[in-house]
């Protein structure tokens, strides 16, 4: 160990009480940041995953402009072909086909305009969580013909229970009238009111028949193995699609493009969080700046002596910086350690927010939130703390240069 580091370390502990308070301040800030960032990242991931799993999927292959216009004529004409492409793409976990049309749905004495979605039951259950959110009745199976599952709020509005009949009326792909009668097989509650109020799902084959879709669908919905690999899958699928000329009107959209509100919402929440954290760090920095300042004023005489016997001001500055950096490091390491332990505890047990569960359900979060510790959430906050504290320490350390040995030695 070099003499400078040894000296710095001993100097830090000349006044243990002050040092401990300073370290605690830094550790407190780090602990809080580690926990809060993990908490935020964890809830974002929950939000993204549940929105993805309820309906949107990680990626969708659609006809160009379908996302904006939702026009029934904008189709993916050969879904099986895209399916064959997806079978060979790395990281793709599962995929399914869907077709959608806005239609009038009537029960015995109620009529509502809703989105009728044709799904492939065997594939759909690998992609979406709707199967697990069936509250009454049961999910669609492959043998089902004129059966439907209905969102909870829509079922309430229509006044239907499993077994009741619904009439669907809309416009087919060729402009003809599309009409059919289905019976309610199950009722689902995804938790997102908007979705539960405005959708009904029927088997894809029935949909294609009723809406004269031939073999076409509107969306090929893809789930990848994790959020991280989505951009790789997207690039790969785009490349594969381009190989065939007939696919040039198809486009691949990822979850951010499918749900722009969600992404921007997360950005906004994160920005606000960062503003709060920065202010907190600045308050902490000023709180501990005095420790750094005092360390110098108390020791002016000592520095004078050091300089008189030939220590350069640069070396003293270096010494002081080593002191404050090691002080900060101790605080940061303690903060990261305790913060990570705390986060891991809650990551395992979850944070119960069931008091506001109805509210959180709208964002796809059930009563429990699980923070998620990651390298990013554990290190980015403490790094900011380190940066700002070192900046604060720089001011007193540079003041040394102005010190005159003789005057300094006379200082009491």
């Amino acid at each position, binding site marked *: 160990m070099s003499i400078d580091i040894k000296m710095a370390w001993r100097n830090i502990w000349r006044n243990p009480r002050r040092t401990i308070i300073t370290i605690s301040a830094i550790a407190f800030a780090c602990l809080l940041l580690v926990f809060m960032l993990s908490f935020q990242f964890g809830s974002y991931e929950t939000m993204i995953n549940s929105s993805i799993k309820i309906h949107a999927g990680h990626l969708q292959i659609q006809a160009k402009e379908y996302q904006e216009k939702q*026009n029934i004529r904008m189709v993916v004409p050969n879904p099986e072909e895209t399916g064959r492409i997806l079978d060979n793409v790395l990281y793709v976990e599962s995929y399914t086909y869907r077709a959608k049309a806005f239609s009038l749905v009537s029960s015995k004495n109620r009529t509502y305009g809703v989105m009728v979605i044709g799904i492939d039951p065997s594939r759909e259950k690998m992609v979406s969580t709707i199967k697990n959110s069936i509250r009454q009745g049961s999910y669609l199976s492959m043998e089902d013909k004129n059966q439907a599952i209905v969102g909870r709020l829509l079922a309430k509005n229509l006044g239907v229970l499993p077994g009741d009949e619904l009439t669907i009326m809309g416009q087919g792909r060729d402009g003809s009238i599309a009409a059919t009668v289905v019976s309610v097989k199950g009722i689902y509650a995804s938790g997102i009111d908007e979705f539960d109020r405005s959708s009904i799902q029927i088997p894809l084959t029935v949909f294609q028949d009723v809406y004269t879709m031939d073999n076409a669908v509107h969306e090929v919905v893809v789930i990848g193995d994790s959020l991280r690999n989505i951009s790789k899958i997207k690039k790969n699928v785009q490349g594969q699609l381009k190989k065939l000329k007939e696919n040039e009107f198809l486009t691949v959209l990822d979850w951010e493009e499918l749900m722009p509100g*969600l992404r921007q919402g997360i950005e906004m929440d994160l920005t606000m969080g960062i503003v709060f954290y920065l202010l907190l760090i600045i308050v902490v920095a000023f709180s501990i700046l005095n420790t750094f300042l005092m360390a110098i004023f108390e020791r002016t005489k000592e520095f004078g002596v050091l300089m008189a016997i030939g220590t350069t001001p640069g070396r003293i500055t270096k010494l002081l910086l080593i002191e404050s950096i090691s002080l900060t490091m101790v605080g940061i390491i303690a903060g990261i350690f305790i913060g990570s332990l705390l986060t891991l505890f809650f990551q395992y047990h979850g944070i119960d927010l069931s008091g*506001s569960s109805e509210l959180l359900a709208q964002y796809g979060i059930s009563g429990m939130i699980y923070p998620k510790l990651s390298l990013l959430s554990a290190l980015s906050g403490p790094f900011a703390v380190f940066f700002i504290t070192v900046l604060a320490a720089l001011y007193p350390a540079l003041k040394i240069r102005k010190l005159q040995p003789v005057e300094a030695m006379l200082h009491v």
Partner: protein
Amino acid sequence: MHIHLAWRNIWRNPRRTTVILTAVVIGIWSMVFLGALMRGMMTGMIDNGISTLTGDIQVHHKGYRNDPVIENSMTNPSMLKKILNDTLPNGSQWTARIRVNAVANNARHYSGVTMVGINPAQEAKISFIGPERIQGKYLDSMDHHGIVIGRELLEKFETRIGKKLVLMSQDTNQEIASRAFKIIGIFTAEMKATEKQFVFVTMSAAEKMLKLKNTISEISIIIPENHNNSKIASDIREVLPPKDYEVHTWQELLHILTAYLEMFDQFMYIWFVVVFIAMGFGIVNTTLMAVYERMREFGLLKALGMKPWWIVRSVIYESFLLLIMGMAIGNLLAFACIHALSKNGIDLSYLAEGADYFGISRIIFPDIFFQDVLVANLVVIVLGIIVSIYPAVRAARFTPVEALAHI
């Protein structure tokens, strides 16, 4: 005398005092300023919710809220009118509406919408809709075919002013009624969802289409600012026959927003305490330094017969002064910032869809809540004094002999 002494003691080391003062100032500033911004965001959400056809209080036929269909309408508007005019305080505004779910379609597109039959002049005083927010023409009460729709819906339908739009809904005989309207105006709203959801026609046009007579689905009331809406709501509840009518306040109507507000209150107070802890470390440390430097002095004072309690008091006076100064400057700065922003607000348009997702207005105006400012300042002063007890007690414990031996 004590205050005077404390004041001079604080400024014995101006640099140190300035540093810790800065910490307190930034702390207080962030509490009050960010608090006002967050409050402004909340107020924006509430105003938005209230003006999006909610109002302070709503009256419906029993069951309408769970099942908003035409059967659950109120059939005696003249009686309601009389009752409302008698019960509502002066300065209140109210309007009646017919409101049903409908399907809008033109040649190319379909969409589910909420059709609202309004009394145009009265509605403009209560909701976001009105001549100023409209491009094209606003409805006229005699207009039987005009319809005003939102910009988003217009774009989705690839249509424009002057074009036809057909609405379909269930009429009183549970048959599908449809009626063609001409788009005469386009409204813009804070939320895209609102622009997609609502279409406005006149009350008489809605009556014709749905074969209604003298029937309304909803009454929306705005009360003057200094009145308590839950009290007025219960007044109305008392005079209306409870088996036919239900009266709700906006807090009940927008229950998700209310839940959000409650969660937000807790969040804010936690944030106050967190910021305080950050500066608390600094306050303790700085006061400790100040005390240890003056060990000799305290020893001498004690030797001269000063009671320990007096020493505790004088140290606490010092941090009290420091905190008060920090609070004064911090609050002043915060109010200045709030004032500077009160004209133009903070524009979140670049995150418009995110703002929509959380239901926040695109422009946030800070809003000062007296209660928040009070809590922020109380947290700082009370906890600030509590943490400075520790250095104060330390100072009081110096024994004269030991202290006087200290250089």
